[in-house]
């Protein structure tokens, strides 16, 4: 397989379902009729209208990027804080990529529905975790077949559920 790149979406799913990471990497995109996908898209398109801007850096896309008191501030909007670990690592990954481009930044996770924000800064521990995660994601992607589906809570609302459980 050529041209496999890790991106924020894969990082997000890595902490939820490893099977999903594999499927996404093959562009086997999930069912577009799934109503949960629509909700996600809706929130994404309609929240924080004033600040909202999507900017690509290399092969990653960030939601909000602006200068804030001399620092670059990267924002990521999520519909709920249920998957905080995923969200945190995803944003940390963006910061890490920015750093590779020589930009120091801070991150802020936003949960508009819950009116909640979490700040994220890179440190040695997080950077080590990210490097480890990158390797593990590549390991998943390079496998010929995905990990078998395992029923988890997320399956119920997952756009792949009919694919996995048919």
């Amino acid at each position, binding site marked *: *397989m050529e041209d496999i790149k890790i991106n924020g979406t894969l990082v997000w799913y890595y902490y939820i379902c490893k099977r999903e990471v594999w499927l996404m990497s*093959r*562009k*086997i*995109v999930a*069912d*577009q*009729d799934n109503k949960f996908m629509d909700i996600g898209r809706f929130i994404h398109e309609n929240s924080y209208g004033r600040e909202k801007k999507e900017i690509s850096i290399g092969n990653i896309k960030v939601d909000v990027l602006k200068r804030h008191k001399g620092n670059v501030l990267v924002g990521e909007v999520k519909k709920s804080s249920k998957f905080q670990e995923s969200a945190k690592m995803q944003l940390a990954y963006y910061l890490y990529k920015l750093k590779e481009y020589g930009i120091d930044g801070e991150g802020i996770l936003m949960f508009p529905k819950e009116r909640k924000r979490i700040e994220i800064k890179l440190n040695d521990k997080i950077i080590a975790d990210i490097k480890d995660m990158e390797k593990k994601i590549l390991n998943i992607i390079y496998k*010929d*077949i*995905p990990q078998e589906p395992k029923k988890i809570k997320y399956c119920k609302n997952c756009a792949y*559920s*009919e*694919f996995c*459980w*048919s």
Partner: protein
Amino acid sequence: MKKVIYIFNDGEIKRKDNTIFFETDDKKSYIPIEDVSDFFIFGEVTLNKRFLSYISQKEITIHFFNYYGYYMGSYYPREHLNSGYMILKQSEYYLNEDKRLNIAMEFVNGSYKNMLSVLKYYINRGKDISDIDESIKNLSREIPKCFTTNQLMGIEGNIRDIYYKSFDRIINNKDFVFEKRSRRPPENYLNSMISFGNSLMYVMVLSEIYKTHLDPRIGYLHSTNFRRFTLNLDVSEIFKPIIVDRLIFSLLGRKMITKEDFEEDMEGIILKDRARKLFVQEFDNRMRATIKHRQLGRNVSYRRLIRLELYKIEKHLMGEKPYSAFVSRW
């Protein structure tokens, strides 16, 4: 839940603001686009590029039927779910004769088992068709012995010939005798209904394929020549007995369609308008009827079942899980 919009009347269909507008001589109607999964157009309908581009953007397919109710073709928006990986896999399984045969066999298995399930239903209701059931079971033993898809097609054809012999005994109506299978043109009422029902099935499966990563031009049982859709023919084999044939038996059994509903035209025996609408309506009801799905743990419609079948094929092509066709249990 999105639905299929069937258009029988003549008129003009167009985009109007952010919805669809259908205008006939004496009626105007709005069709909210978010509710539409596909269009089946039977009437004489005028449309323009602006409408098509709107439809493409919403990933809706349009299927056209001619004056006689025959399928003409589809407007299939540029593939939106593109996975180079899946197309490569689909081709790989087509080009490798063993792999291809393997999948084709499963289509035939699903098809004959669903025929048996139709027969079983009528055997339980006292129809004298056990001999046919027996012959099909005997013939089915030849399926695993096939070396080529041509042989397999041969067996499949034989099974179908025997299966159709049950129709006269099930329907038991002298107006609707099977005689022999005649397609174009259908030479009698029953053949006309079978052809019509099968084409609805092909089109429905095609619409579902569009919503997956599969390419409808690469079939396994039906040979691919890249000029026409064949994967939908393959998958339809599984569903035809339980959807189309049952539908025909029920329409005739309840005398909803009689010989007065047909006319003879240059194209053979065709269904008149009223009966065609009725047929389509009943077909749609069947597609929307739900059954309990064990693995998913909830009810799914027959239409959804087609999609799940396609997902199973995708998983087979991925090398993840061997494909096993859907078999109706009643």
